[in-house]
């Protein structure tokens, strides 16, 4: 293994988790106030380990466990010393690192060595995956985001111009009529057939025309061009209007023109 040995003889200045602390890590010579900021910047033990590996230019696929473990512990101790709230995960990782290191130091029988996995493999796998995600997060963060870098266009929809009116269809009307009949239990009296409707439509039409021209000559009410059926319906409408006292039919003498006017139409 690529364990550097030159430090082993130096006198440790302190021991952390049984690991000798030879010197304060170089990168920890930082203005005291800034230290906390730096330490807080780590997202967890994996983040700290990655930082140490990249800083020291260590090969992530062949990690020298002793110096890495030592540096890691120094940082953890620095965090504790500055009273940072230290997540339990940092201590778990410290134990893991030491376990790996000691396993690497154990002599292994050649037979076992073949099938046995490198004790660092799991750690390497986790470090690689975390680093991948860390970089992905950075890339995602650099992409233009709606709300932050981009505004979704949404122009005003002008709806105030016309008052919105209810829509009614013929079926709604029939339904309303049906409810009415049901409620009033009206039967034959309010039977409405197509023929009757046609007469009633003409009744309204004749009244409408008499509003515009107060007096019409009887013949003017009929338009032969519309066919016999319409002529008949018009006649029925005139008769019904007369029966309901809505029209007055006048004739000064036999064979004189018949005049049609609204019953008792007000003198204008």
């Amino acid at each position: 293994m690529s364990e550097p040995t030159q430090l082993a003889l130096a006198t440790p200045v302190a021991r952390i988790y049984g690991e000798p602390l030879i010197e304060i890590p170089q990168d920890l010579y930082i203005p005291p106030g800034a230290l906390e900021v730096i330490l807080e910047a780590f997202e967890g033990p994996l983040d700290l380990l990655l930082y140490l590996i990249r800083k020291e230019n260590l090969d992530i696929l062949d990690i020298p466990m002793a110096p890495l473990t030592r540096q890691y512990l120094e940082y953890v101790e620095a965090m504790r010393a500055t009273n940072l709230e230290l997540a339990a995960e940092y201590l778990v990782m410290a134990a893991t690192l030491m376990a790996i290191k000691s396993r690497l130091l154990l002599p292994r029988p050649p037979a076992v060595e073949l099938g046995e996995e490198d004790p660092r493999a799991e750690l390497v796998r986790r470090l690689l995956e975390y680093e991948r995600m860390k970089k992905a997060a950075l890339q995602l963060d650099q992409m233009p985001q709606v709300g932050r870098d981009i505004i979704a266009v949404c122009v005003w929809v002008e709806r105030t111009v016309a008052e919105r009116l209810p829509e009614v269809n013929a079926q709604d009307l029939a339904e309303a009529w049906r409810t009415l009949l049901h409620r009033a239990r009206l039967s034959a009296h309010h039977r409405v057939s197509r023929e009757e409707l046609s007469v009633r439509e003409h009744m309204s039409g004749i009244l409408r025309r008499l509003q515009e021209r107060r007096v019409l000559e009887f013949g003017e009410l009929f338009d032969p061009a519309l066919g016999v059926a319409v002529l008949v319906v018009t006649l029925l409408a005139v008769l019904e209007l007369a029966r309901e006292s809505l029209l007055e039919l006048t004739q000064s003498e036999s064979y004189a023109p018949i005049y049609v006017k609204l019953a008792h139409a007000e003198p204008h």
Partner: protein
Amino acid sequence: MPSPTEAKRILEAALLASQEPLSLVDLRRLFDDQLGADTLKNLLAELREEWNGRAVELASLASGWRFQTRPEFRPFAEKLQPEKPPRYSRAVMETLAIIAYRQPVTRGDIEDIRGVTVSTQIIQTLESRGWIDAVGHRETPGRPALYATTKSFLDDLGLRSLQELPPLEDIAQTLQLEPAPATVVPEAANEPAAG
């Protein structure tokens, strides 16, 4: 300083991206107050011109400028985000049904059939919609107006004539089987007309 074309593109984007109308002060801030109010107004006028003939327009309001859809776009807006259509009250619908099927009728006729008072508001709702009008008066005391449906009513319902209204014979027949009623079902006298 951006070129006039650039400035116009920036103005356009700012106005399109803003939910609220932007005042001249807001817009000048876009250019760090480097653009005079007159220049800005000219650019806005040009921009407005550019948007002619499109379904969105640059409108000048009391509080500033904003892009908004033209009134003609409204039917399309409805298709995308339909507003819940308002409905006429039962009183209005029944009154309309009576006028449509029994015209010409007076308010008294309608009240006889419905069994309750018909408020002036109901008649007004239908009149102002242009669906009914008074076509004459019945020569009885008080000379009540006779109401009928209008052509506009037929048009709005997509009918060519009243005869295209659903026939009601079948209903009348089924109802005939029922025993004659003793009383008319009471109903609240002053129903609100549809808003």
